């Protein structure tokens, strides 16, 4: 189920990208899409009844950890998402400076 929720989130992001005309809202849509994606990645590593993949003094002998790889991947994906978002926002500011608006429809022929 979790995966399907993630896909719904992904589609929500796509929907936003399709319909939104505001630069900031487009960036937000992009973020929603990325969150959906990250959720999906995490969900791929989940096993029912799996433990968090950390060795502690209470870890049983043959621990059934969840898959740690997707968690590591998602960390990378999140950071990359942050980088893109920062850049997108900086561009949004540039766009605002240039056109005086954030709405794509009001920018003329560009």
């Amino acid at each position, binding site marked *: 189920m979790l995966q399907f929720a993630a896909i719904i989130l992904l589609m929500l992001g796509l929907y936003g990208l399709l319909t939104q005309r505001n630069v900031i809202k487009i960036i937000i849509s992009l973020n929603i899409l990325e969150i959906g994606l990250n959720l999906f990645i995490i969900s791929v590593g989940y096993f029912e009844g799996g433990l968090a993949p950390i060795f502690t003094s209470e870890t049983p002998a043959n621990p059934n950890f969840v898959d740690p790889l997707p968690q590591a991947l998602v960390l990378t994906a999140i*950071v990359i998402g942050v980088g893109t978002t920062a850049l997108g926002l900086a561009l949004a500011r540039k766009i605002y400076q240039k056109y005086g608006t954030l709405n794509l429809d009001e920018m003329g022929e560009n």
Partner: protein
Amino acid sequence: MKNFLALLAALGLGVLIILSLQNNTLFNEYGEDVTGRDSEEYGDREYGEENPASGPANIVTSIVADFRSFDTLGEITVLFVSSLGVALLLGGTKQKRLDLGFHPNFMLRIGSKALFGIILMTGVYVTIHGHLTPGGGFPGGAMIASSMLLLYLADDTFRAKIKGFKILESVAGSLYVLIGIAGLFFADYFLENFLNNGVVGDLLSAGIIPLIYVLIGLKVGSEISGVIDNFLTEEVV
């Protein structure tokens, strides 16, 4: 109308993807365990074991900073280049604070400074314990940066010393690569963990991993702080 069609398309696609994944016999919604995946080998040690193949108690950390450390190097490069880009786009020779339209009172200023210390310390803690507990350089660095953000938001005259951030960023990044190259020369492989792995679960264990995580924390912290600074300042016209 357009919105409705878009909704229909997105929903339709979502349903189709879900159906197709459900039809796909190879695709497991939830697996039993990691058997059959490459990540089987990542958790191949025990708590308290001495000198294992990879040191951290936190397996995710051992992947991020050891097994797939190269990805992480790429990751901080992404952050690095985007912070550079933000500076390139928004920065200029002379910068001044963006006017937030309010003046903080005494309580806010002092309170935020007190909070700043606590958040900073939490960030440092999270960074240093990255190989033992959930967390690590990225969340730690983000916390450090958020303490900066707090100061920026609470005080309309505050500006951090960007130059210092830059040096930190550069040195941390260079050290990361240098550690990697040192691995190439002192041991056999780039980014090899050439220090003693110690005992799983100890603070001083896992070889170079805590070191790398501290560097990452510093780098991420300074980079995000730099980005924040760039967003909250504007060029003097």
